[in-house]
């Protein structure tokens, strides 16, 4: 009897010990992932004298908003106001998200719910395209965009990124499990296909396209390569490109406060979007596996 209780006690201890180790390990990892973010956030609010303190500090002592006001009000000669870059990023990322949602939901719904002849082949091609890095198609895309006369325009940043295999794939996997009976019922009630899609399928697909909105927004907001290739006017640059121009070259020391603020403004929106949509993302990702 005693032996058993002893053993039980020991076991409880062991479980607790491994759990404690686990928590410690997790916290260490959280430190690794979070420290650069914390440093980034703090630097955006640091007054200039704290930015150049020795030894350097991660946490801010006397937070100030002056970096932001410097960033947003400074209008050096021949320079584009920072708000313009914010607009460029918001507009191109927003338009891409909007278009990709419609076009991918349209296509994925058509493929999953009507299964037209040849749809198996199409889907196999799309799955294969998951393995194409966007860099591989960048040169021909550049030629096509040039041919269409879209270089140096917002369209160059939007059009090539709308029909993305990844996005189509996500919605298709989710659309697969929409109950046919609901759609059938709508048809019997005399609703035409577009109406059924818009008023019945789209609301049901909401978790899928919310996820798409997050992923598409994140990847387009952070996309640096497209803007680097397609844009050569200052006024059309997106945030990452503009930030890089700002963070290099002469006068960096004087600007380092504004660079900190700009970094925060470039990083924050994706995190906010993720936080808002988190619950729905989970619902979709459940269906996102590939059955090979």
């Amino acid at each position: 009897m005693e032996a058993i209780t002893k053993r039980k006690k020991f076991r409880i201890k062991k479980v607790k010990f491994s759990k404690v180790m686990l928590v410690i390990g997790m916290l260490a990892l959280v430190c690794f992932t979070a420290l650069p973010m914390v440093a980034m956030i703090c630097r955006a609010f640091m007054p200039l004298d704290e930015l150049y303190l020795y030894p350097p500090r991660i946490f801010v002592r006397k937070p100030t908003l002056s970096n932001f006001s410097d960033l947003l009000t400074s209008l050096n000669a021949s320079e584009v106001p920072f708000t313009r870059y914010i607009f460029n990023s918001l507009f191109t990322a927003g338009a891409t998200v909007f278009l990709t949602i419609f076009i991918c939901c349209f296509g994925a719904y058509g493929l999953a719910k009507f299964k037209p002849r040849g749809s198996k082949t199409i889907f196999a091609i799309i799955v294969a395209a998951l393995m194409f890095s966007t860099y591989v198609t960048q040169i021909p895309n550049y030629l096509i965009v040039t041919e269409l006369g879209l270089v140096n325009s917002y369209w160059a940043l939007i059009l090539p990124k709308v029909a993305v295999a990844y996005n189509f794939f996500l919605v298709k996997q989710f659309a697969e499990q929409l109950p046919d009976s609901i759609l059938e019922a709508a048809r019997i009630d005399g609703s035409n296909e577009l109406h059924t899609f818009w008023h019945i399928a789209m609301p049901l697909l909401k978790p899928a396209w919310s996820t798409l909105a997050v992923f598409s927004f994140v990847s387009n907001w952070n996309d640096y390569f497209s803007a680097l290739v397609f844009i050569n006017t200052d006024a059309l640059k997106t945030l990452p490109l503009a930030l890089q121009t700002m963070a290099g070259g002469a006068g960096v020391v004087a600007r380092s406060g504004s660079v900190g603020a700009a970094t925060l403004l470039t990083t924050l929106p994706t995190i906010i979007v993720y936080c808002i949509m988190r619950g729905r993302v989970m619902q979709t990702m459940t269906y996102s596996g590939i059955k090979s």
Partner: protein
Amino acid sequence: MKTRHSVQKVKSKMATRKNITGWLFMTPFLILFTTFTLIPIFTAMGLSLTNYNLIQSPDFIGLTNYMNLILDDDVFLTSLKNTLLFALLTGPTGYIASFLMAWVITLFKRGRGAFALAFYAPSLTSGVAMSTIWLIIFSGDRNGYLNSFLLNLGVITEPILWTRDASYLKWVIVLISVWMSMGTGFLVFLAGLQNIDPALYEAARVDGMKSKFQELRYITLPLMKPQLLFGAVNSVVGAFGIFDVATAVAGMPSPNYSAHTIVAHLYDYAFIRMNMGYASSVAMILFIITFVLGRVCFYVFRSEED
């Protein structure tokens, strides 16, 4: 007889209608997908066999570009070596870390959301934007966070030129890429894990399964094959596409080309030297690598029932 005939007719009519509607729904996607993904892949293949500078029309030169790449272009070989190093270190690390994190998080009852955000946030950030912070952390003078920390501890006596010294630079890029790739498959895995029926674990426990690791090995992993595959394909594509962080932190060209990647080489030849044919052959090599590895993933995570 007649009625059966007409039923068949109606059925085939409905099938045609279904076909047409389905294709109509897919048309907008297919047009853009063909224009910006499918045609470009074949164009890139074709261009890689030519000499093309955007001004004169492309000259067919066979496999010359590939011969030059492999036999003559030392910088390309360096970029290939670097990319393989970066990909082999960051891909699997990010993949395994995000799976373990997702798995550990499901073991907790509280605080899931906060932990999830902490692990996932880095992969939401822009590599270029965060590089302004990395450059301060790894700054070569005493003011860099890392140098000042190590100097304080007495581990080093002189500040280290993290981003200028080729031998350190590589590892700095690896570290940053790992940091950013921790979350690649995280959400997919987390969702997959949360979707596994708890009754299965219950049943296994009744059957005498004892450890969490056995559960992982015999229940969790087999059930998560589709998610594991999706995550693997994404992390392959991501790991071989390291470019913006490397150029933002190391500059272009980087000291001794120690952070030069395949994509950097592609960018250099395509959009700085305007040698589209040669750059396309670089793109094709990247394509072949990711495609073959993607196929390997499909093989490794194939579902048993097929």
